[in-house]
């Protein structure tokens, strides 16, 4: 009897919590369809009375959000590709090969797992400036082509693959590169999927470095454009800003809902018990 009642209360509390978690997203989407006049009213209506697409029209017309969206995609694509290729390669060496310096390499990867971007961005900018890469795609992409977390994730996954298949391939005379490409990588699907999602997301949401290195509008990524517009002269344009947030957030939310098991897997794969 008491037990049933406890559970019932738990559902109520969890649902209230869920409403609090989801409400900002609902508010964002509804706000993006409201006219400025409607927003100025107080108290504000929950549902847009006179829904309009004007905010989106401005976003992709007057402001160049098509270009920002494209920039975000380009940067995220190369960052993700680089992480998959390079992390897999180091991951294989760390998981399946015995070599001099292995312990040192892994220790370095582990110790830099949590180094924040705010510590490195100033010298990184000086370096980028001297390479002539400020305000360029390589400038946006190069520093993120590798992440220690990606290496760690691939190593952890590859450790779980049996050594027998590698030994068998070696006896058949296959070289390490062949083994890596033909034997190991085809088995790494789940790890690569998780890494893809995590890296793409990290790049898509990345803010500090693009803010520093993209100096003109044509190289802005979505978060940079959104942040700079939100504190500039468009700041009071509530509906416009909400529409901008929708463009950044909703694609990612959709991907998350569809692929949510890979997100959870990512946390499991990085070795957290």
């Amino acid at each position, binding site marked *: 009897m008491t037990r049933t009642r406890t559970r019932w209360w738990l559902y109520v509390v969890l649902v209230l919590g*869920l409403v609090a978690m989801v409400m900002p997203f609902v508010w964002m989407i509804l706000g993006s369809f409201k006219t400025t006049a409607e927003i100025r009213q107080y108290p504000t209506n929950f549902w847009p009375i006179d829904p309009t697409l004007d905010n989106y029209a401005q976003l992709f017309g007057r402001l160049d959000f098509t270009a920002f969206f494209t920039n975000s995609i380009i940067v995220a694509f190369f960052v993700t590709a680089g992480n998959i290729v*390079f992390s897999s390669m180091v991951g294989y060496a760390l998981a399946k090969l015995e070599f001099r310096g292995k312990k040192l390499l892994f220790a370095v990867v582990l110790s830099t797992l949590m180094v924040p971007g705010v510590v490195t961005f100033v010298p990184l900018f000086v370096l980028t400036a001297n390479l002539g890469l400020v305000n360029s795609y390589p400038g946006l992409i190069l520093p993120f082509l590798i992440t220690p977390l990606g290496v760690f994730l691939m190593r952890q996954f590859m450790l779980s693959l049996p050594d027998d298949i590698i030994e068998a391939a070696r006896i058949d005379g296959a070289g390490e590169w062949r083994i890596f490409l033909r034997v190991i990588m085809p088995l790494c699907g789940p790890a690569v999927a998780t890494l893809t999602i995590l890296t793409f997301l990290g790049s898509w949401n990345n803010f500090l470095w693009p803010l520093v290195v993209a100096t003109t509008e044509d190289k802005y990524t979505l978060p940079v454009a959104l942040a700079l517009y939100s504190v500039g002269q468009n700041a009071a344009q509530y509906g416009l800003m909400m529409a901008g947030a929708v463009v950044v957030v909703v694609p990612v939310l959709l991907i998350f809902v569809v692929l949510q098991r890979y997100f959870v897997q990512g946390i499991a794969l990085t070795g957290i018990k």
Partner: protein
Amino acid sequence: MVALTPSAPTRARASRRSRRTTLIAWGFAAPFVILFLVFMAGPIVASFFMSFTDLTTRDLQTPFNVNVVGFENYAKLFDDPRFLRSLLNTAAFVLVGVPLTMALALAVALALNTGISKFRTVFRVGYYAPVVTSIVAIAIVWRFILQPDGLLNAFLGWFGITGPDWLQSTTWALPSLILMAVWRNIGTLMVIFLAGLQGVPKEHHEAAMVDGANAFQRFGSITLPAMRPTLLFAAVITGIGYLQFFEEPFVMTRGGPLDSTLSTAMYTYNQFGFGNYSYASAASYVLFLAIVVLSLIQFRFLGRKD
């Protein structure tokens, strides 16, 4: 029987093979190592050395042609009330934000793990959703929610409460940013705690129930101790994340009002913007040191019994 000491030719062959493997392995690691040295290890070290020089935006093309000024940048930092204020704000963000996020996430995880059987995926997806979103985008949304005539105050109005102008108040601005950070990060810790709860032995709970222990006693004497490594990990990653909070004040308050939400990361960024590169590096290294110290303290505190 396998010979205990391999014959000389075998040993030579083995060492030749291991040299070959070492070469191949570093071949696999090479692209990573090069990119890592140039774009990560290099800047970490450079940032340290830069903080002892007077490098500014004028020296951008000749970064090695600078004067060494010793601890001058650090002395100046700790003389600047705005920097000290930023440290205080950052400390408050971590000291309030981390326990709050952990407590709420643990409560959600426990509820999902023990109390309910239906809609678990719906809850999990809903609570985790904010984690995947851009902080910049949701900070904009929250900025509007927290306006004097915004959604939060409309909600409080139902209960007859007149809410303040959250982001323009020196009292409420920082708590508002903490609230948003908690909202965004509950999901990460919830998933980590859910995984951790799988590792709590069920037999212990059953034995304690037989002995008549109530739910709170069981939580305190069985669940919490078993979760110690998980809690440690959660505290470290959340603390490290919160120490760097930047997007929230950048978008929502610009560090104001009266520096009440100025974070150390934002102070660093501002100094970088003014062209004071070495001074900004010094500020970022103070933050880095705080991150290292925090990890060590948390390891000591939570790892006591191990």
